[in-house]
């Protein structure tokens, strides 16, 4: 079976973001960009399913500016067989991405789509669920374990929920979004990075896929969160208890 993995190019998770002084957004000029960490987990899971003989092909897909090509090359260095870039300069919101992915799914006919559970830039946690809804497929979000049935008509997926774990039996085709504990993504080796340059990367556009990607939400402003006032260091446990009892009055 074929697996489709959507990947997003985001600000590297180690970067301390700076809000622009005019309140128009976050400063992304000359900032290191990387693949969204949850998407690395998704690629890893797809590649492991291929190595286990369950999947036959892993296709990575990304939507956004031309530089998303680098993210797709990374996905191919990690084991994806080929890639699709949906190129646009328009700001893409989750509903638009879900519609673009649906168009790709209609064409590619994968049995499994594995998005990350959320992107660390907009923190929306919506795209996978929206894609499942548009396709009328079952969804298993925040997965920490995926077992595809031998006949490949279904899968048992363990999900992380508040208070513990739950296991779902879902029919394929389906959308499974990854949680961090699903696996430990591998590193791309230099030979694989070289090989990834030769793997096919197809480019298309929202217009070619017949999808209107106009943003539905307008960002009026982006602000810094209120700063915490600088705290103090106490000398010992007795001083700490005294502060908590008499100054902060929280115990």
């Amino acid at each position, binding site marked *: 079976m074929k697996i489709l993995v959507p990947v997003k190019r985001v600000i590297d998770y180690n970067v301390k*973001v700076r809000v622009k002084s005019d309140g128009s957004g976050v400063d992304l000029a000359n900032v290191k960009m990387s693949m969204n960490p949850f998407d690395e987990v998704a690629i890893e899971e797809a590649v492991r399913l291929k190595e286990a003989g369950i999947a036959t092909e892993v296709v990575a897909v990304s939507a956004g500016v031309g530089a998303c090509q680098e993210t797709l090359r990374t996905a191919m260095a990690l084991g994806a067989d080929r890639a699709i870039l949906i190129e646009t300069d328009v700001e893409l919101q989750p509903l638009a991405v*879900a519609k673009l992915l649906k168009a790709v799914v209609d064409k590619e006919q994968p049995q499994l789509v594995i998005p990350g559970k959320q992107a660390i830039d907009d923190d929306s946690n919506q795209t996978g*669920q929206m894609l499942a*809804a548009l396709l009328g497929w079952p969804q298993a979000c925040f997965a920490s374990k995926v077992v595809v049935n031998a006949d490949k008509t279904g899968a048992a997926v363990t999900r992380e929920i508040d208070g513990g774990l739950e296991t*779902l039996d879902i029919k394929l085709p389906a959308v499974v979004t990854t949680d961090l504990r699903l696996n430990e993504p591998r590193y791309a080796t230099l030979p694989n990075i070289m090989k990834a340059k030769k793997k096919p990367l197809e480019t298309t556009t929202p217009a070619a896929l017949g999808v209107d990607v106009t943003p539905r939400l307008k960002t009026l402003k982006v602000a810094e*969160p209120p700063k*915490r006032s600088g705290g103090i*260091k106490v000398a010992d*446990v*007795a001083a700490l208890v005294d502060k908590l009892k008499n100054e902060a009055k929280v115990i």
Partner: protein
Amino acid sequence: MAILVIAEHDNAVLKPATRNAITAATKIGGDIDVLVAGSGVAAVAAAAAAIAGVSRVRVADAALYADLGAENLAALVVANAAGYSHILAPATAGGKNFLPRVAALLDVAQISDIVAVESADTFVRPIYAGNALATVQSADPVKVITVRGTAFEAAADGGSAPIEALGAAADLGISKLVGRELTKSARPELTAARIIVSGGRALGSSEQFHAVLEPLADKLGAAVGASRAAVDAGYAPNDYQVGQTGKIVAPSLYVAVGVSGAIQHLAGMKDSKVIVAINKDPDAPIFQVADYGLVADLFVAVPELVAALG
């Protein structure tokens, strides 16, 4: 304007996060209906009807909603969405799971994890792990929103809304719950606790995590949390995790023990009223957000603290 709030529950008890979502709904303004879908949920519906500000409770009580699966729940909400300008759910694992599905079926955007209501169409939400706050305006006919519980007070009792039954939608039959494995805990729930004692990688082992933190938590009547490093190392179960990828908490007192204070973790707790850090590394980033910092070996300081609390 009418607002639909989807109740979160486990078929027996109404989850407190629902009350925070109802408070967010009152800030938008309009009649507030609460939808309770599940199996054997009479007690949940009664609890929802008693909350001040609720106009009506609509109950879909059927076996197919017992699992609260996203597919059937979303279909039910969409079938009953007519007449509502806003559809809200708490931003819990449950709300995050099914509500985007509702939004896509209605062909509208979802506004995730709001922390403030500016007006009926404008909301504030954190982005970049809480390092920026975005004010967004929706032009969609229906605003589909998840609410960050810790940003809104819990709605109190004092109402007596009528309860009406809703018919069940057809079972889609594409997903089935096989089993749940819940972490047993006698302590307060993490997201609702007034005090949280949280441990990091420095605890060193699962045994020490429990042996060091639990006496302190018991003394303070606190919930126990953990950093991602502590969870990944197997010291604590993953539903203890506080952070961008775990739970977002805002207790009165957050005690971070042996937690370095990575961005990911801070995103989950920096709205706490008072933060205490106990760490032997004086340069740990946690001290930049801590109101009271104690540079000390946690294996000495925490038992001392327990003793000092008498």
